[in-house]
């Protein structure tokens, strides 16, 4: 009451002070106090996943508009975060999250939190076993099946398995044991695969209730001992493109219930290899199916620099395997991701910073830099 009286007096005072023209309309009393976002999400929106390495119990996801550079909002996503997963209708966000009952101690609880993309509010929560992997963020830690029905989450305790979550009933279905094999890459409406320590793949088929009905283990699909591939592939249809430490592209194609290795091809000439050119970073590959282009973060360095950032993006024609463009980045980059529309943007995380750069992939022009995006951004997720 006292506050109300003071407020009324203040309003009178302000209105009496005006000299010419209409006074500004009051914000207080307006019906809108919280912003909301258009639905479905824009094709040029990007979700920047930040596991906040200096204080990992406070993971965040930053939603940006790549066209305007505007910061749209944030998700708080708990401890040791990896990344959000977006279904194709764009209305929801799935977020595998870890919490401790006393912040940094107490009972660990793992959940999949469901957010509405227009309000960024929590609209559901699904309990899962407290086993989700805690690692450097990588896309294979969780994916949705190709029809968005089942969410697949990689567990590492260090026993390896995959938690299957039914998004329709919003319930945990069960675990699929995947001994010796990491990740949960969706490969169809009712299938996923893992990558195994011996460079083989483990293909898993699910039934309509999300339970495993078949597991198929391939032979080694690349040279895991001498030139392993980085964890993060890019996909077009039934083909996943991996890049090896020494810079060879390994296309792995789903064939029936299993996987086969297509002929590998080099990113570099012999002279470029002698000069030390190799791929590096975290999300070091990007792809655009419509353009038929593969983008690779490149730098010069020795074998042990396979995680180093690069200031050059080499662009390849997927049909001819030829390098058709070189983008000289304004800053060293660790992660890149292309939007999926036919007028794509190429998003990039700048190393040693919390800056997101936006490039026009066809011209290589830096369109804008978006600053102060979290603490240690690592993976970019775009609208499917």
């Amino acid at each position: 009451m006292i506050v109300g009286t003071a407020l009324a007096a203040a309003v009178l005072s302000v209105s009496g002070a005006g000299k010419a023209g209409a006074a500004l309309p009051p914000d207080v009393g307006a019906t809108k106090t919280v912003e909301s976002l258009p639905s479905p999400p824009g094709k040029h929106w990007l979700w920047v996943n930040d596991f906040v390495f200096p204080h990992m119990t406070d993971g965040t996801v930053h939603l940006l508009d790549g066209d305007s550079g505007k910061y749209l909002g944030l998700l708080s996503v708990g401890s040791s975060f990896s990344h959000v997963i977006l279904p194709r209708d764009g209305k929801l966000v799935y977020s595998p999250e870890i919490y401790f009952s006393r912040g940094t101690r107490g009972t660990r609880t793992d959940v999949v939190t469901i957010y509405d993309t227009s309000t960024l509010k929590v609209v559901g929560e699904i309990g899962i076993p407290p086993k989700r992997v805690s690692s450097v963020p990588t896309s294979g830690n969780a994916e949705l099946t190709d029809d968005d029905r089942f969410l697949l989450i990689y567990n590492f305790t260090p026993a390896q398995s995959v938690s299957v979550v039914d998004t329709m009933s919003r319930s945990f279905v069960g675990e699929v044991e995947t001994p010796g094999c990491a990740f949960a890459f969706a490969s169809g409406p009712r299938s996923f695969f893992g990558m195994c320590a011996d460079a083989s793949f483990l293909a898993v088929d699910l039934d309509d209730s999300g339970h495993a009905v078949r597991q198929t283990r391939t032979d080694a699909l690349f040279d895991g001992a001498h030139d392993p591939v980085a964890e993060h592939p890019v996909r077009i249809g039934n083909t996943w493109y991996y890049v090896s430490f020494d810079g060879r592209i390994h296309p792995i194609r789903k064939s029936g219930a299993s996987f086969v290795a297509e002929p590998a091809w080099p990113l570099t000439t012999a002279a470029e290899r002698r000069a030390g050119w190799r791929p590096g970073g975290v999300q070091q590959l990007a792809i655009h199916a419509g353009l038929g282009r593969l983008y690779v973060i490149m730098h010069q360095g020795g074998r042990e620099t396979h995680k180093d950032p690069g200031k050059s993006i080499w662009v390849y024609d997927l049909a001819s395997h030829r390098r058709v463009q070189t983008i000289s980045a304004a800053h060293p980059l660790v992660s890149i991701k292309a939007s999926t529309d036919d007028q794509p943007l190429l998003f990039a995380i700048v190393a040693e910073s919390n800056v997101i750069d936006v490039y026009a992939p066809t011209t290589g022009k830096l369109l804008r830099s978006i600053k102060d995006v979290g603490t240690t951004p690592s993976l970019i997720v775009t609208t499917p």
Partner: protein
Amino acid sequence: MKWLDRFTEESVRAVARRSSRRSLLAGIGALFVGAAALPLLPVARGAEAKPAPGKKPGGGTADPGDPSACDYWRHCAIDGFLCGCCGGTQATCPPGTEMSAITWIGTCHNPGDGKDYVISYNDCCGKTSCGRCFCNRNERDTPLYQPGQSNDYNWCAGSSQSNIPYHCSTARIVGAAE
């Protein structure tokens, strides 16, 4: 993001690798019960690790270098905050934290005596990240699907004995490599 600036100043190869980092290695192996095709991987139990005979950790000609520096020889495959900068040492955890029971072991060359040593990078757990002296070096590091040699796993998580947050990483001598 001033912490990043500090980061860059204080750590030798600092970040970049910010992204790749976080890690802590792995060890595994025998724990994959029932994994017929799985190669057995090295497992180190930190509580059992002992300094090599006659070696004095942390300084002197037998163990040269600064344990709080990223280029210290034992850090050849580390990925995390150095416990020596966080109230512990390269072999012990800071007060109030708990050492991970299992971790990855790497092999590093000691320029002091010319020998290779097996190093166990046990994480210290139970408080939020220390945030000091970040260091990531990747000698012989492998991808996450080869966990026995990958420095990108968090060993404070998962293990039933220490399913708690990551704080910092040690670099403990297990013994001379043969």
